[in-house]
Structure formats: structure tokens, C-alpha cells
């Protein structure tokens, strides 16, 4: 198969602008992107830098952006992805590049994994025998921990795209593995920690991560699970972003009262009645909204006919964490 690899080259040491270099290759049927990269390094350009390890798509090492989509190079067949006998190969996005396809995972993902204190904080149990656990308690934790840390969910994350400091779906999925591990005693402590700014409440739940995860782990759903658990445990926010908890409480109170959302009230209560500066910040928007006849008047909105039933459902749900 005749194919041209258009590879983005860069070297942090020189700092020169990335450039695209083309390599014409004749590859056997069934060749993978990694085969192509090896062939380039061996036969055409020994300076090309990339990483690879397991060769079978189970270790997460050889992530690259191939034709604008994050892939594991070792199990991506050239024939399945080439367009007009061409493939583009770039480093994944939002990650500092060291050289060509070698990027700085420490700066991108490893430091975030470390930030969630990724080790079991055991809740005891006799050390000479295994924990007795039901399969149902383990299945989801096991699924989450099947993550091989390829970084592709973070690469697809819409928040990381604007804020590299966001903990991101991969680290939150790692955290999930401990929060829901029945052998871990630090669930609430972990949820508090994850609730601080740049943590789980910074997630926009855009569901990009689900689509980018090659393992079907559905990181976005894990984040929802963390949030739901956090709410059950009364955590709702960190110490440094209490507006998140106020926002949640106001939302619930509003729906409880009328069956639907009182947006005006939500805006005010999220800032907090005592937060004068925060409330003042709302003013220009409020004035504009008023001028356009679209200011939702706080506390004045009508209850829906079903409001009483809704209130009962919420109270019942709040009293019974699943």
C-alpha cells in the first residue's frame, strides 16, 4: 500500500515552530500507524521520536492524533484511516510536546493522577485473608480501573481545552476507583478534595470524554457518579468554591417550591445574599435583562400544578440515598 505520512515535527530544545514533514511509504496490507512510524525511523528519518510499548493496544503508550482523531498507533490500521492515501500524524492536543510525538505526560496527566492520592486508604479488614466482596460492588470500579491512562479523554476534554489546570476526566476516573472502592475509608475526604476548584464541579459534563475513551469507560458518567455521591454525602462543593453548593441548594429549593427553576433566585443565591461584591457583579446583566424584558423575577414565579408531587419526590429521594 502506497501511503504518505504527514508527521508534525517539533523539538522543544530548539523551540522552532512545528512543521509538517511528509514521508512516502510502501506498507504491507494490515500495517498499523505504528508500523509506519517505525518504518520511517528505520529507513528514512532516524530523528523521528515517538513512544510505543505493548504493540497490542493494551498499555496506552502510543497515543497520537491520526487524521485529527486521537488513536493508539499500534492498533490503528493505516488502511482503515488513510484518506486519499494520506495520514496526518500529530501529537495529541493540549499537552506540552518534548519532541515530535513524545509529549510531557508528567505535565499533562501524571501530575493530576498523583493529585487524587491514587492509593487505597484501607478501612481495615484482617490482613491474612481477602475482603469478602460481592461482584456487584466491584464491577463498576473494575470498569473504571480498566483505564490504561492513554490521555485521550483529557485530549478531548472541552474544559482542558481552555484550562490545563482542570483535573480532567482521566484523573477523576482514577478518583472514582477509590471513592467507590468498598475497601477505602476516605470516601468523604476524597469527595471534599475533588470538590475544590479545578475539580469535579469544573466539569461541564459535555460527554466528550465518553466518545474519546477507547475503552468504553464513560468517564463523564463517572464524574456524574462522583457528583451524585458527593451530594448524597452533603459535600456539594469545596471550601474554596462554595458558590457551587449554594447553586445546588438553591436549584433544589426552587424546584421543590414550584416544580421548576427560578433562575433569578438561582443567580442571587449562588452568589450568596451576604456576598455584596458578587451580587453587584450580577447587576449589569440584570439591568440589561430588564431592559430587554427578560429578567426572571426572583421568588415571584408561579408554582406548577404538579409542584406538590415534585416536592414530595425530592424529599423522598433526598432521604434515601441509593
Amino acid at each position, binding site marked *: 500500500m502506497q501511503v504518505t505520512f504527514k508527521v508534525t515535527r517539533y*523539538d522543544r*530544545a530548539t523551540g522552532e515552530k512545528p512543521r509538517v514533514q511528509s514521508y512516502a511509504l510502501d506498507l504491507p496490507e*494490515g500495517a498499523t500507524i505504528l508500523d509506519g512510524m517505525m518504518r520511517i*525511523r*528505520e*529507513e528514512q528519518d*532516524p*530523528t*523521528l*521520536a*515517538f*513512544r*510505543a*510499548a*505493548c*504493540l*497490542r*493496544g*493494551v*498499555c*496506552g*503508550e502510543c497515543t497520537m492524533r491520526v487524521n485529527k482523531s486521537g488513536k493508539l498507533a*499500534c*492498533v490503528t490500521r493505516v488502511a482503515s484511516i488513510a484518506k486519499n492515501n494520506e495520514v496526518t500524524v500529530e501529537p495529541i492536543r493540549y499537552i506540552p510536546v*518534548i*519532541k*515530535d510525538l*513524545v509529549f510531557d*505526560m508528567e505535565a499533562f496527566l*501524571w501530575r493530576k493522577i*498523583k493529585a487524587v492520592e*491514587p*492509593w*487505597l486508604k*484501607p478501612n481495615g*479488614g484482617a*490482613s*491474612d*485473608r*481477602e*475482603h*469478602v*466482596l*460481592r*461482584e456487584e460492588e*466491584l464491577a463498576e*470500579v*473494575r470498569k473504571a*480501573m*480498566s483505564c*490504561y*491512562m492513554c490521555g485521550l479523554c483529557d485530549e478531548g476534554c472541552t474544559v482542558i481545552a481552555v484550562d490545563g489546570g482542570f483535573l480532567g476526566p482521566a484523573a477523576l476516573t482514577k478518583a472514582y476507583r*477509590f471513592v467507590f*472502592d468498598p*475497601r*477505602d475509608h476516605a470516601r468523604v475526604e476524597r469527595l471534599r478534595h475533588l470538590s475544590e476548584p479545578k475539580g469535579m464541579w469544573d466539569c461541564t459534563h459535555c460527554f466528550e470524554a465518553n466518545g474519546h475513551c477507547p475503552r468504553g469507560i464513560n468517564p463523564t458518567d463517572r464524574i456524574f457518579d462522583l457528583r451524585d455521591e458527593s451530594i448524597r454525602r452533603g459535600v456539594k462543593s469545596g471550601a474554596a468554591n462554595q458558590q457551587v453548593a449554594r447553586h445546588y441548594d438553591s436549584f433544589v429549593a426552587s424546584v421543590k417550591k414550584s416544580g421548576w427553576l427560578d433562575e433569578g433566585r438561582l443567580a442571587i443565591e449562588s452568589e450568596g445574599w451576604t456576598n455584596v461584591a458578587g451580587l453587584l457583579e450580577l447587576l449589569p446583566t440584570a439591568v440589561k435583562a430588564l431592559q430587554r424584558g427578560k429578567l426572571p423575577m426572583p421568588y415571584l414565579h408561579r408554582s406548577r400544578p404538579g409542584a406538590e408531587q415534585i416536592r414530595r419526590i425530592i424529599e423522598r429521594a433526598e432521604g434515601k440515598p441509593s
Partner: protein
Amino acid sequence: MPELIADVLVVGGGAAGMRAAIEARKQGAEVVLLSKVHPLRSHTITAHAGINGAPAGGAWQAHALDTVRAGDWLNDQDAVEVLCQEAPRAIIELDHMGALFNRDGQGHLDRRRLGGQSAPLACYVNDMTGHYILHVLYEQILKSAAKCCDEWFVTALLVDSGACRGVIALELLTGKLHALGARAVVLATGGGVRAYEPSTGSLGTTGDGVALAYRADVPLMDMEQVQFHPLGLGRNGGLASEATLGEGAHLFNKEGQRFAQAVAPGMAELAPRDLLVRAALAELEAGRGVDGALLLDARHLGKDRVMTRLPQTREVVKAFTGKDLAADPVPVRPIAHRLMGGIHTDLNGATPLPGLYAAGSCASTGAHGATRLGGNTLAEAVVFGRRAGTAAAAYAKTVAAPRGSDALLKDEERRIALALSKGKGGESDVRLREELGRLMMEKAGISRDAAGLQEAVRGVAALQGRYAQAGPRGPGGAFDGGLVAFLELGYTLEVAWAIAAAALARAESRGAHWRRDHPERNDAEWLRHTLVVRGAEGPRVEFRPVTVRQWRPERRAY
């Protein structure tokens, strides 16, 4: 002057290395874990099927007998005893660290039967056991605050005054060589199966530690014993996990016969791998294959079971063959998989070279004999990793900080510069590696004889000569993968030569070592290990008696 960086320097970030590092930390040692790939990319992640250990209340002796029988009585039974007695505790320890082993209906650890097991021995996490063990051990490494040097590649051991006192290592990020001093060094660099082509080895299973020890005149034991796996998917890295067979999948020939039933009526597809591989080869040679392959059939397990218990195998099979494990028969053929042999160590991972320890797949305690029982690889890694960590930490307390000059560092710098200078016009090391893989497969593969093995020995020697004149094509410096691959090939050549020499020496068939010209096992002459020692003209084969305790040699039948 080498800089003292640790009491215990562990080379290799797989299960054995991390387990050693964790234990050495527990003993209070300052530990550096150095690995040529990030620990989570280690080859342990490909050990899918399970980790053996007798269940609570079960007898470890049954595990031991299965191990010895699979090993065709070449095992050192003291090592087998240690492995099988300590594995259950090691598994429980992993459970307490947070591993997510599958449970049985009562909530206890479930076990599955793998090849060669008379009863279920292998704890498992679906078909990703190695993944979970690797990730859990890495969690513990982070907790232990051991220092990690990720992506550092060792080029030589620092040996001074008859003891190992550190390593020379290439920092891939900068391309610089460093002399790293340590009171003790633990090699846990994994196997060297990439001497064969194709193999299931990760890119880095190039025998680095085995060759480093060998170059430091540490003997290598049982190197002739090379395990092939029946479920290869035709190219490097391609393997359907043995978990498929453990879950009840069958192997068929072209005529729809379960050919394994003929060679092992009692176990069929759960016979040890060497038997299965030879049976598969016989089928293929008799023309009963389908396009040169046999068929792995998991369809009768049902889609649900395949999806829940074999999800990763399904992914891998799909990627390599385009087949759906749940819906299609999958073409499989034997593929080079593991070395049973390696750096000769005692039961605590100590090598004859003071200060040098080894554990896991690069080491040979004698536990595996002539065929590694499926599920014993991970057990070995954590049991002997822990022991090596303990012993290395204890040793480190008894020795002073390394002294010495920069002479070796300068030598290594010169050696690499010289190689780089040869690379521009010389022969391509890539071709050499391909030739080596083919040579080993053809002449020192599943079926061997003296003439072929002599060709293998001569052939590897010739490749060594050509290698000495070759060099990597790249410029050196940061992340020069070609340079690393070139240095790795140097290690693999040492390993290959040792395999061929030991295989030529052992004039009998035992376990994985099958000699067409000596088809029988011969206990009278060959109940002994080969020890390959480096000589001026290449490897020299010596011998060492096998430690036999309670399991007297019997005929091996299943």
C-alpha cells in the same frame, strides 16, 4: 564519581520491580525505581489470564505439583515450595492494596483453571489480571514515595571490587549518560523473547537485565527453555489470552476436531502450553490447519460471557484479525512467548555477584523448570519481587556508599559515540534484528535438532560480529529511539546466543525444549540445569543439579 542515588536501585517498573521497590521502602531503604518505559507501560500489563495461588484452606502442595509437572521435573523444588507457599499471601496482599480480583458467589476470590492446572489456581480480573496488578502496584509506589526515574535506559552495571554498585544509564529525555551509584541493584527487566520473530513480547522485552548480568559474568540458568503460546495472532504483540481457554473456549483443526484431546485426554485445551503448542504444530504440519492457522472458538461461551470475562481479548482479536471473538472462530498459531530461564538467583533473588539481585521474568530461581505453568508468571513476580526487595534492602545496610571513578561512564560514552559514528554508513541494525528473529524461530524454535542449533549458534555469532560493525542511524541525544533499539539488540543477541548454546547442549527433550533428534526425556543424564557463562569465545555451558524434594520425577502425562 558516581552519584549515590539510592540504597536500593530497582531497574524495571513491572510487577517484580515495583514489588521489590515497595518492599525495600518498607524496610526503610531509599529506593529509586528506574525504568526504560513509564512503569504503567511495562510488559506485566500483557499478563492477562491470572495469578496462581492456592485458595485458603487449599493445599499449596497441589499448586506445587502442577508447577513441577508442567516444568517436567526440571524445577528446583525449594523454589517451587517458596513460590507456592507464599503466593496465596501475596495475592491477599494485592487484594488489600486494592486489586479487583473477581469474586465467587460467596464473595471470596474466584479462581480459574489455566493450562496445566489440575484444579483452579488462578485468581484473575477478567482477562486483564496483569493490568490491575500493575496499576495497583504503581499506586503503592506513589504511596511509598519511592523515587521514579521513568524513561531511563541502563547500558551497563557498575561493578567495582567484585560487587555491583550501581548502573550506567541513559536519560532518554536528555540523551545524557549518568553513573548512578547504589548500595544494591535489583534487576527486574523482564524477559527477552524478542529474540524471536514474531513474539508476544512488548517492544522492550529485549532481555536487557539478562544480558547486563551475563556481561557481568553472572550465569544464566535454563536458557534453552523457551515457551511458545498456542494462541498467537500472527504478528508481533498479537495474542489471544489463555483466559479464553480458562473460560472454556476450544481449539479446532480444519476437520473440526479438538486436537488437544488427543495429546492430553484429561485436560484437552488446558494442557500445559508446550504440549498444546506441539500438538498445534503437528496439526499444521499435517495439513490440518486453515490457512496455516488453527481455530480458537469461544462462541459457545455466549456473547455475555465473552463481553464480561474476555473484553480485552475481544478488543485485541478484533484489532489483529478483524474477527469478533464472540461471533467468529479466530485463527491462531503458535508464537514465541516467554523465557523460563534467566539470571540465576537464589531464593532471595541474590545473584552470585554481591550487590546484584534479580526478580521476575529476567531471573531464574528454578521455580519454572522446563515449562512455566500458566498463571505462575505474576505469582513469581510478586513473591520473588518482594523477597528480592527485602534482601537487597538488608544487604544495602551492610555496605558503604559506592566509591570509584568515572572510568566506566567514560567507557560507555565512548562505546555509544563509536556506535553512533558507525551508524551512518554501516549495516542497518533493523535488518540484523529481523534476521535474528527468523534464525531463532527456524533453528531454535518449537522443534529443534543438533544441526539446526549449531546453525543457530553460528548464526548468532555471525550476527554478533556484524552488530559490532553496525550502529544506530540517529544522531543520539533526546529520545533517540533508534539508539535505544540498537543497544537493546545488543542485549537480545546475548540472550539469543545463550538460548542457542544451552539448547544445543541439552541433548534430550524436556518441557518446552523439544529435540527431534532426542525425543525422550532422559533423567539419568539430564536432570540438571544448564548454566550459561560468558566466555572469551562466546557462551560456555555448565551444569547444576536440580533440587528435588518431595516430588520424585515421574512420567509427565495429562
